[in-house]
């Protein structure tokens, strides 16, 4: 290391570093996985709000099942799709706590449709973080409800055929129709500006819990480079070109 770099790399010059709300564990995610960035944002929002001792996370079944190894707060690991019900149980008995679920598209939009619909419809005072990468990552790249028409997965080897598999589900738009949701937004984490916006959305969602405003739902469109069989950089490009037209970014509801 040169003398110049030694000069710069002093504590007082730090402008970006790992938030202390992240544990020291190496994440099990594949290289370039969006989950890592989203975990970081959630941890930063919690740390900056000073609510680590008041926040309880609920992890899903799917790639992010082990989220509890990475964000240093109390967690419940839910059965597949049931995270919103688990969060309901926690939040109802602890109205003073910040309770959030972290769920993928298989967990939330397929097996857990009933739980998320009704938690949102009751207006549970929780945050739901929905990571949509249009595929089942953990089980090896099968079709998800959000898989695009024509998209190749291990269970749609010739591409998603609407006659056989139906249509990509825009569950976020559906949930925005429910009176219990106060804030419904769709974000992404593929560029620094997008990451800053996604963090603002997450911050707002947690602030809504403080204001007892009901359910805040933050979808984050992400990549699964392993499942999509691309490099992380190619996956980001593919997402912009193919996912965003179907899943446009921006606030859908903000009351």
């Amino acid at each position, binding site marked *: 290391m*040169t*003398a*110049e*770099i030694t*000069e*710069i*790399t*002093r504590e*007082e*010059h*730090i*402008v*970006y*570093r*790992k*938030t202390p709300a*992240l544990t020291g564990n*190496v*994440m099990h*995610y*594949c*290289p*370039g*996985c*969006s*989950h*890592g*960035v989203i975990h*970081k944002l959630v941890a930063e929002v919690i740390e900056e709000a000073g609510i680590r001792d008041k926040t309880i996370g609920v992890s899903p079944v799917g790639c992010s099942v082990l989220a509890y190894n990475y964000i240093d707060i109390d967690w419940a690991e839910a059965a597949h799709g049931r995270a919103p019900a688990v969060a309901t149980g926690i939040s109802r008995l602890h109205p003073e706590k910040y309770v959030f679920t972290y769920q993928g598209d298989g967990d939330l939009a397929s097996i857990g449709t009933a739980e998320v619909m009704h938690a949102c419809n009751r207006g549970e005072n929780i945050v739901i973080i929905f990571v949509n990468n249009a595929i089942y990552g953990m089980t090896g790249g099968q079709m998800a409800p959000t898989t695009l028409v024509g998209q190749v997965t291990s269970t749609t080897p010739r591409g998603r055929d609407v006659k056989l598999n139906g249509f990509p589900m825009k569950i976020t738009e559906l949930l925005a129709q429910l009176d219990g949701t106060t804030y419904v937004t769709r974000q992404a*984490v593929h*560029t*620094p500006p997008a*990451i*800053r916006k996604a963090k603002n959305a997450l911050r707002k969602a947690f602030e809504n819990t403080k204001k007892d405003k009901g359910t805040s739902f933050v979808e984050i469109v992400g990549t699964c480079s392993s499942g999509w069989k691309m*490099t*992380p*950089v190619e996956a*980001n490009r593919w997402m912009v070109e193919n996912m965003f037209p179907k899943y446009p970014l921006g606030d859908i509801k903000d009351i």
Partner: protein
Amino acid sequence: MAKYRGAVIVDAERCKGCNLCVVACPAGVLTLAREVNGKGYHYSEMARPEECIGCANCGLVCPDAVITVYRMNTKQ
């Protein structure tokens, strides 16, 4: 006073070589190393440190939180 405006320190052993930081850097500072770390990944490193402006884009996009970014206080 150092001539460098910014610097990036990558925790090479935890880096998975996804290349996202290399692409996100507006100044072309970073590159993937020819060598691999203990996990077999070509980790990210500064190839042209003199170009670094300390913008922290690399840190923001890093999924593994392995990047620390430094910037000289230009007001000094």
